[in-house]
C-alpha cells in the first residue's frame, strides 16, 4: 500500500541525523518559549525565519513544526504552576491545573499534561497520515453558517465552564463578547470602541488579555497575603500520578484527543474551541462535577490532549490546501515560500519528501518532548520554592517582554495592565475569568460568521436551519441548553414545593 511507502519515505527524511537534531532543537526551543509567559511560538518562528534561509526546506519546516507543538507542551507548564496561560488553549488548563498546584499536586498535573499530550500527539499524527486529504475536503463544507452554529454550541457549552453561579458566568461571557467588539468593523471599516487610537483598530491582543486576566490578577491576589502563598505551594507531595490518577485520566485523554483531532482540522478557531469543549464535556460526564475548578485531574487531562491533537491536525489544511488555520501556520507558509516552495494542493505530489518528512518528524518530536519534559517536572516544581518577592517581578518582566515582542505595540502592554486590574477586581467579586475569555475569543468569530452567512444568503436567516451541518449543530446547542437548565429548573420547582409544605 502507498501509505507504507509514503511513511517509509517520511521516516527516511525525518530520521536523518541533522533532521533529528533540528527536530530536537525545535522541540527544545518550543518548550522554552512555551514556558516563558507571553513569548509564544508565533514570535519565535517569526524571529527564526531568517535562519531557515540557510537550511533545506524539510529541515527548516521540521524545526518550525517542532517549535509549534513543543510550545503546546511548554505552555501548560506556566498555566499550571503560576496560572499564566501563554496560549489560548492552555487558558483552560489553568483552571484546574493551577488548583492542583495549589494543593501540592503540581508534579502530577504536569505529568498528566505531558502524558496526555504525548498520547494525543501520537494519535493525531496517525490521523494526519491516514486521512489528511479527505478531512481537508470535509472541512471545506464548513461555510459561515456552519461556523456560526458551531460558535453558538461553544458559547452555550461555556456556561458549563463555570463552577459557581450560572448567572455570573453568563454575565462574564457577555462582558467577554463586548471586549471582543473593540477594533475596526470587518465589513464597514467603522472603528468601534477604539477612542481614535489606531493601535486599537486591530482588536485587543488576545495574549495580553489572557495573561493579564489570569496571570497578573493572580500575582496581585497573591501579594495580598504573602505568607499564605508560600505555605500553600511548598507542600509538594509526589511528582508521579498514582494508579488512581491514571484510571481517572484515561477516558478524558481519549475523548479530548478525539475532539481535538476533529476540531483542529477546521481552519480558524477550531483548535481553540477544542480545549474549551473537551473541558465542558468532561465536566458534564463526570460523576463528581463539583470537583471541577478545584483541582480535578480530568480538567487537565482532557483539554491538554485536545489542544495537542488540535495543534497537530491543524497542519492538515496547511499541508493539503495551502491554507493557514492560524497565525503560526501562516508563518510556516511564509517559511515555505522563502524556500521556493509555494504551499498548495500540489505539495503532496511535488514535494512528497517534505510532506511525509514533516509528518514522520512529528512522531519523533512527540517522543522527544515527553522524554524532555518528564525529567524537567522536578525542576519546574522546584521553581515554586523560589521566594515570591523574586519570582513575581521576574514573571511580570517576562510577560511584558513577551507581549511587547508580538507586535512591538505599546498598547498591548496597556491592555495587559488594564486586564490585570480587571482580573483582580473580578476575583474579588467572585466572578470567573475563563468564561470571559471564551466570550472574548468566540464573540468576534460569532459576529463575523453570522454577518457573512447573512450577506451570502441575502439576508435570509433560514440558511442556518436549511443547511444540514448547521442545523445539527444548532439542535445540539438546544439539547445542551436543556440539559444545563433542567436540573436548576427542577431544583427551583422542588424549592417551591418545599415552601408550600
Amino acid at each position, binding site marked *: 500500500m502507498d501509505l507504507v511507502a509514503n511513511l517509509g519515505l517520511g521516516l527516511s527524511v525525518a530520521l536523518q541525523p541533522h533532521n533529528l537534531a533540528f527536530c530536537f532543537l525545535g522541540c527544545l526551543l518550543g518548550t522554552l518559549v512555551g514556558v516563558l509567559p507571553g513569548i509564544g511560538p508565533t514570535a519565535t518562528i517569526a524571529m527564526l525565519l*531568517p535562519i531557515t534561509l540557510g537550511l533545506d526546506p524539510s529541515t527548516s519546516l521540521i524545526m518550525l513544526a517542532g517549535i509549534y507543538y513543543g510550545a503546546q507542551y511548554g505552555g501548560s507548564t506556566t498555566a499550571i504552576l503560576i496560572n499564566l496561560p501563554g496560549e489560548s488553549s492552555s487558558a483552560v488548563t489553568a483552571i484546574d491545573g493551577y488548583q492542583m498546584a495549589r494543593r501540592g499536586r503540581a508534579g502530577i498535573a504536569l505529568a498528566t499534561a505531558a502524558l496526555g499530550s504525548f498520547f494525543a500527539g501520537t494519535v493525531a499524527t496517525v490521523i494526519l497520515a491516514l486521512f489528511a486529504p479527505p478531512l481537508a475536503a470535509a472541512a471545506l463544507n464548513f461555510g459561515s453558517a456552519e461556523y456560526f452554529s458551531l460558535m453558538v454550541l461553544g458559547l452555550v457549552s461555556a456556561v458549563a465552564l463555570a463552577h459557581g453561579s450560572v448567572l455570573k458566568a453568563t454575565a462574564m461571557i457577555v462582558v467577554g463578547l463586548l471586549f471582543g467588539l473593540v477594533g475596526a468593523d470587518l465589513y464597514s471599516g467603522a472603528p468601534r470602541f477604539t477612542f*481614535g487610537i489606531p*493601535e486599537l483598530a*486591530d482588536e485587543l491582543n488576545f495574549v495580553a488579555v489572557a495573561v493579564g486576566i489570569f496571570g497578573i490578577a493572580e500575582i496581585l491576589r497573591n501579594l495580598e497575603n504573602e505568607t499564605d502563598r508560600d505555605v500553600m505551594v511548598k507542600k509538594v507531595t509526589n511528582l508521579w500520578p498514582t494508579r488512581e490518577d491514571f484510571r481517572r485520566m484515561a477516558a478524558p485523554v481519549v475523548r479530548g484527543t478525539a475532539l481535538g483531532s476533529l476540531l483542529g482540522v477546521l*481552519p480558524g478557531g477550531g483548535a481553540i474551541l477544542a480545549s474549551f469543549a473537551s473541558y465542558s464535556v468532561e465536566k458534564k460526564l463526570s460523576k463528581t462535577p463539583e470537583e471541577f475548578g478545584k483541582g480535578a485531574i480530568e480538567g487537565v487531562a482532557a483539554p491538554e490532549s485536545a489542544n495537542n491533537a488540535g495543534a497537530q491536525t491543524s497542519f492538515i489544511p496547511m499541508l493539503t490546501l495551502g*491554507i493557514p488555520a492560524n497565525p503560526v501556520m501562516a508563518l510556516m507558509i511564509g517559511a515555505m515560500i522563502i524556500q521556493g516552495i509555494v504551499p498548495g494542493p500540489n505539495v503532496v505530489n511535488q514535494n512528497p519528501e517534505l510532506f511525509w518528512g514533516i509528518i514522520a518528524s512529528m512522531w519523533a518530536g512527540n517522543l522527544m518532548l515527553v522524554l524532555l519534559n518528564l525529567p524537567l517536572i522536578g525542576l519546574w516544581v522546584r521553581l515554586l520554592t523560589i521566594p515570591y518577592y523574586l519570582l513575581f517581578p521576574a514573571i511580570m518582566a517576562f510577560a511584558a517582554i513577551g507581549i511587547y515582542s508580538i507586535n512591538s505595540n505599546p498598547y498591548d502592554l496597556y491592555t495587559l495592565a488594564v486586564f490585570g486590574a480587571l482580573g483582580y477586581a473580578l476575583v474579588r467579586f467572585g466572578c470567573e475569568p475563563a468564561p470571559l475569555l471564551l466570550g472574548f475569543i468566540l464573540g468576534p468569530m460569532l459576529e463575523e460568521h453570522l454577518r457573512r452567512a447573512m*450577506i451570502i444568503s441575502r439576508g435570509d436567516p433560514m440558511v442556518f436551519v436549511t443547511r444540514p451541518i448547521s442545523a445539527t449543530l444548532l439542535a445540539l446547542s438546544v439539547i445542551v441548553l436543556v440539559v444545563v437548565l433542567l436540573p436548576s429548573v427542577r431544583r427551583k420547582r422542588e424549592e417551591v414545593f418545599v415552601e408550600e409544605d
Partner: protein
Amino acid sequence: MNKIVASLVLAAACSVAPLAAGAQGWPERTITMIVPFSAGGPTDTVARLVAEAMSRDLGQQVIVENVGGAGGTVGAARVAAAEADGYTVLLHHIGMATSATLYRKLAYNPLESFEYVGLVTEVPMTIIARPGFPADDLQGLISYVKENADDVTYANAGIGAASHLCGMLFMSEIDTQLTTVPYQGTGPAMTDLLGGQVDFMCDQTTNTTSQIQAGAVKAYAVTSAERLDQLPDLPTTAEGGLASMQFGIWHGIYAPKGTDAAVVERMSKSLQVALQDQNVIDRFAALATSPEPQENATPAALKAKVESEIARWKPLIEAAGVYAD
C-alpha cells in the same frame, strides 16, 4: 540606591543616538526594515528576500520587523516618526497610496513624510472563481456576472486589501455592483472559494498560483501586461477584452523624511544589487512575480508611482464610499 543610579546611567548610555550619520560611515550597525503586515504574508516574504540580499551588499544585517495593524498604517506611521538616521526603513506595498484616501485621519502624509528609495516588485493579480462556476473565460465571466448581479458574490480579504482594490476596479470597469463578502485575510477567503461558499475573487499570484496550477479553482485572467511564465495558459486582461484593468501590487522602500540624501542613494544602489541577485529572482519567480528593472529601483521612480497611484485610486475609493476609519 546605587543600583538604581547605575541602571539609570546604563539606560542613558544605551539610548544615546549616533550623532550625524553621514553616508561615509553608513551603515555601521544593523538596519531595521519595518514591514507593516504580519510575518509570513506575501509582503513579508518579499521583504525578507530583499533584506537578505541587501545585507550581503551592505555588509550589515538588515533585519525585518513586523509592525502590523490598521491596513499597514501603524507600521508606516512608526517609520514616518522614526529617527532619520538611515537605520529604520519601511517596505510597503500599494497601500501607501490607497491609504491616502481610505484613511481620512492619517498620522503621516504619503507624499511628505518619507524619502523614497525605490520600487521593488509589482505582483500581478489573477481573477479566479470557485470550482464549477459557470463561466469559462473572462468575457463569459463578465456577461454572467452582469446577468446575475443579484446572485453572484465576490470575496475579498478585508478593506484596503489587494483583493478589495481589484474588486473595486473590476466592478467599476464592468459598471456593475456585486455583493461583496469580506474576510479577514486571503486564507479564509480562499477556503470559502475552494469550498464553493462564494463565487469569485481577484488576488495576488502569491496567493493563487499554486491553486490555479493544481486546478483547484477556475482562473480567467492575469492583470499584468504579458502572460506569466508560471501560468502560460492564463490570458491577460487585455487579451480577454478588459485592457484598462491592468495593475499590480507594487512594493517600495521608504526612509523617514530628512534621511541624508547620500544614505538614500546608497540604499537605492543596494536595492538595485539585491534585485539582480539570482536567489531573489528565483524566489520571486516561484511567487509568479519578478524584480523591478534597475531604472525603477530609484527614488524618482517610486515618487512618481506614489503620486500617480494616489491619483488613480482616489476617485475609485471615493465613488465606492468605503473608508477604513
